């Protein structure tokens, strides 16, 4: 037992990711952690999307299962798992069966290289960003095969649309990413594809890449931000599953558990691309204003933020507990909500513990940034109509791709003479 604690402590003090350290045990632990965390995030995302969207649309959303519908995602999950798994008679059974797994595999494998902190990644790959793009592009295979295997018109059209859309936007996405990789080469002379390396490059550079070579970084970020919405088939680019046209796109024929896999894959893909965006442009795990508000005091202040956030959520819960109707029927719900608030508050309190708060800060900031993107996703869905397919392709090929190319060239030119650029802006070289 003692050895175990020592082992853990030895790990906590190391500066390597489990992958880099070649530590299979920790790698496994991390993998499990990431998997569980992702699942929770997807479930939370499900609930949040429904609630936020509902409130945007002047309605309440789920209110029945659990206090404020908090248990709704769980109920949904149970329902989906218990549903009959229908495989159409004329479908290609093997491919139909395997397609969702390809998608889920692609969506989850991406997280191998996602850096939640300097050491909080399963592994740090030399080709990290390449790996992420490559693996996430594998989900196209799953979608295409799913659509084809259903042996039906709507799924096939949805799959073709989907894959065309994803392949198209991958190009613009890649160009935006390459511009960032160029930016990483400024300090060391040779750039890096490693996710951790990119964040560290931002740290060294002293500014997030979104502000680098203003406005080039910003443009790159916007290209990526648009492309990633398209890449994940979300509104306003949710054509493959445009329900008014193609019923539900490539997963029309899926139901039950297999459908929930697609669902899971979609949300984890959203989180994955958001992670890429956060890592590449928004400083990854770095806290806001590291240059402006530096010093140990500010460090302390920012390290308190995670705990405060959880306490804030707990406060909201308690506020709502008070507002709960005082009717016997609501007794259990009220208690549930109070319990939920208490858990949140406890987490918040734990996060004030010095040893924890130093370690957790990175993850919190990363998660907070990703959460911002998640909110954007929901916001888009509440606000925008849907693009038409040709308009979408036009945008991908005729707007984003030329912009990305121009951005690439400009970034290259500017990066070659970064000194001049900095002089121009009156920023001295460190």
């Amino acid at each position, binding site marked *: 037992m003692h050895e175990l604690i020592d082992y853990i402590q030895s790990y906590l003090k190391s500066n390597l990711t489990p992958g880099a350290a070649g530590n299979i045990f920790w790698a496994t632990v991390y993998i499990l952690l990431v998997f569980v965390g992702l699942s929770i995030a997807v479930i939370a995302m499900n609930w949040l999307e429904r609630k936020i969207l509902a409130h945007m649309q002047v309605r309440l959303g789920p209110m029945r299962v659990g206090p404020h519908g908090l248990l709704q995602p769980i109920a949904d999950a149970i329902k989906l798992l218990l549903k009959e798994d229908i495989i159409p008679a004329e479908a290609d059974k093997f491919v139909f069966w395997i397609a969702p797994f390809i998608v889920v595999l692609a969506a989850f494998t991406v997280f191998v290289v996602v850096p939640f902190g300097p050491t909080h990644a399963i592994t740090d790959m*030399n080709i990290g960003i390449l790996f992420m793009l490559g693996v996430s*592009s594998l989900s196209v295979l799953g979608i295409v095969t799913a659509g084809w295997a259903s042996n039906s018109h709507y799924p096939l059209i949805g799959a073709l649309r989907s894959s065309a859309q994803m392949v198209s936007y991958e190009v613009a996405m890649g160009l935006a990413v390459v511009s960032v990789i160029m930016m990483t080469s400024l300090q060391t002379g040779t750039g890096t594809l490693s996710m951790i390396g990119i964040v560290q490059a931002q740290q060294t550079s002293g500014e997030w890449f979104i502000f680098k070579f203003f406005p080039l970084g910003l443009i790159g970020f916007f290209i990526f931000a648009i492309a990633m919405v398209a890449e994940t088939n979300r509104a306003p680019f949710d054509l493959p599953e445009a329900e008014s046209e193609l019923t539900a796109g490539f997963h029309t024929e899926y139901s039950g558990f297999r459908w929930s896999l697609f669902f899971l894959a979609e949300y984890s893909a959203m989180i994955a691309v958001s992670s890429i965006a956060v890592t590449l442009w928004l400083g990854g795990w770095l806290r806001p204003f590291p240059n402006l508000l530096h010093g140990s005091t500010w460090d302390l202040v920012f390290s308190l933020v995670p705990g405060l956030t959880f306490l804030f959520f707990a406060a909201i819960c308690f506020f709502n507990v008070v507002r709960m109707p005082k009717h016997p029927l609501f007794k259990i719900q009220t208690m549930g909500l109070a319990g939920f608030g208490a858990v949140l508050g406890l987490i918040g309190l734990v996060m004030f513990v010095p040893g924890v708060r130093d370690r957790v800060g990175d993850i919190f900031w990363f998660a907070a940034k990703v959460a911002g993107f998640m909110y954007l996703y929901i916001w888009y869905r509440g606000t925008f109509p849907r693009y038409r397919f040709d308009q979408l392709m036009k945008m991908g090929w005729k707007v984003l791709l030329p912009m990305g190319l121009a951005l690439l060239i400009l970034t290259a030119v500017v990066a070659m003479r970064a000194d001049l650029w900095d002089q121009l802006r009156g920023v001295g070289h460190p």
Partner: protein
Amino acid sequence: MNPPVATPFFFYLLATTMIVGGILVITRKNAVHSALALITTLLAQAALYLMLYAPFVAGVQIILYAGGIMVLFLFVIMLISIERAAKERQFNKQWLVGIAAAAALGGLFIAIYTTTTKGKTLFPEGQVSYGESQNTQAIAALLFDRVHGTYMFAFEIASLLLLVAIIGAVVMAKKRI
């Protein structure tokens, strides 16, 4: 730099996957199944590249082969109707001769690989551990560096080849030219 874990196990696992995948590719009636088998093979090969400390090639393998070319294959398979092709005869009339020729080639390979000169095999078992951290940069240097850019010109030619291929493919696939 720790020694790689369980290298033989993973090698044999991946090798078996590749061989089985390859056999499936050439035996399946349904082209989609073939394609899926090929994808499996390619992914396994990417993993093998990683084991050979060639992560960049592995990444390119995944993003280009599995994510690009194979999607293209699937696309085309869906455009053409494969139902009929799946019902027809799958092998041509010279399949026996073809397999014989391939077997001859295989025999030759075996002969070569087992040939020993002066008690040593033709290809010595050289193997060395090498950190992968700078692999990408080293390849980039070979490709682009002003000093060591041995393959700069070849790289440009390759880009030209791709451009020609794009135009060719568009012209071929267009309905009416």
